[in-house]
């Protein structure tokens, strides 16, 4: 693993896109935090009409889960996108670090036999 900054200092949830704090100095139990000046960040997942899975669509601020859900409805489903919404506190997501990219993901790069590419797949099977 390459040397890099300690994970706890470099990554924060407040940027939105999944890089979240993981170090020991970062509070994760979270209910005892001091009052804050802005609402916490939530990550929003929407399942589209023709989508099979909930997909991450962005983030927003809200005081609690109910408000996050309502805000997500207003911010992310205005164009008739969704049939279902999940919201997750950004601080509750533990994310992989960019520093670990090589050790996490590179090893699977040459294991072509893990893909079912050697089978004949019928035309009417979607989403392979």
């Amino acid at each position, binding site marked *: 693993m390459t040397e890099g900054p300690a994970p706890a200092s470099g990554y924060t949830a407040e940027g939105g896109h999944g890089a979240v704090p993981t170090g020991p100095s970062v509070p994760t139990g979270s209910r005892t935090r001091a009052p804050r000046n802005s609402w916490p960040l939530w990550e929003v997942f929407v*399942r*589209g009409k*023709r989508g099979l899975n909930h997909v991450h669509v962005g983030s*927003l601020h809200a005081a609690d889960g109910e408000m996050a859900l309502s805000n997500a409805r207003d911010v992310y489903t205005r164009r008739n*996108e969704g049939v279902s919404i999940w919201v997750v506190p950004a601080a509750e997501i533990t994310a992989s670090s960019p520093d670990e990219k090589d050790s996490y993901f590179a090893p699977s790069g040459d294991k072509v036999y893990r893909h079912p590419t050697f089978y004949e797949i019928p035309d009417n099977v979607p989403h392979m």
Partner: protein
Amino acid sequence: MEHADRLAHTDDFADAYGSIASDNDEHRWAFGSGFDDPLAGVDTAVPSGVDGTDLAAYCLMLGDDALILSHRLQEWVSRAPELEDDVAIANIALDLLGQARLLLARAGKADGSDRGEDAYAYLRSPSEFRNVALVELDNGDFAFSLVRLLVFSTYRLALLDRLRTSRDPVLAAIAAKGVKEVTYHRDYAARWMLRLGDGTQESHRRATDAAAAAWPYVEELFRPHDIELKLAAAGIGVDPSTLRAEFDAVMTQVLAAATLQPPVADPPAGRAAAPPSDATAVPAAASGRNGEHAEVLSELLAEMQSLARAHSEATW
């Protein structure tokens, strides 16, 4: 609802494969398509036995309520407490604008003038508008705007709910579409009332003041106009006095949950109390449905109509 329960209910879209494979022209869009025309397949002829002028006036009453409140809500955009509420309020304003467009267009068909929606929105003088006073009042603070939205959407949801069975298929279709929209508006406003009323001392004080300021304008919502009574008798419209019980029940519930005292229902004469600003004072028992409005409506329309009046053929 508990978390696990909610997760279980997200699977209402059972046949995902079938929907993807089905032969439609939306297959390219995973998100954002499938829009509906609310009047698709609806017979737009004026029903028999109805005075077209009355029907047009009724459409203007309901349409102007939506148009004017939509404009007031639009004034919040970029000024709401959070960006998310900017968007939420803009969405509500757009819902109401959509209802207004359909209703004003319906008025043009009903009165035989064949005027388009823009002619009604942009080329009428204040005394030709038939909205209630509640919707034209200045926005005041966030609490007042949200109390006003709660009052209006509670009234309008009760109204649209009954209008779904109107003998006019166009009104029925507009109502059916509007019920889903206004249900959300009421929910949004009610949840904010809970947060404000049951929030900090300051938010509780502001919510209390806001409710007191809005309440003198409640009575007019349920005071039937002659045209409303005539159309109700013909099975086309709704007598608003029949909506009061539902309104009171909802308000009692929301105010109690928000730890707010029910405001005293001042008769219109006692309305000197506290509208958000002096300019909003309207004569006692004035009827917006008859075109009687406070000065604030003239100011609102001056802004809303300025572009269309300066450039009469402008499109955008």
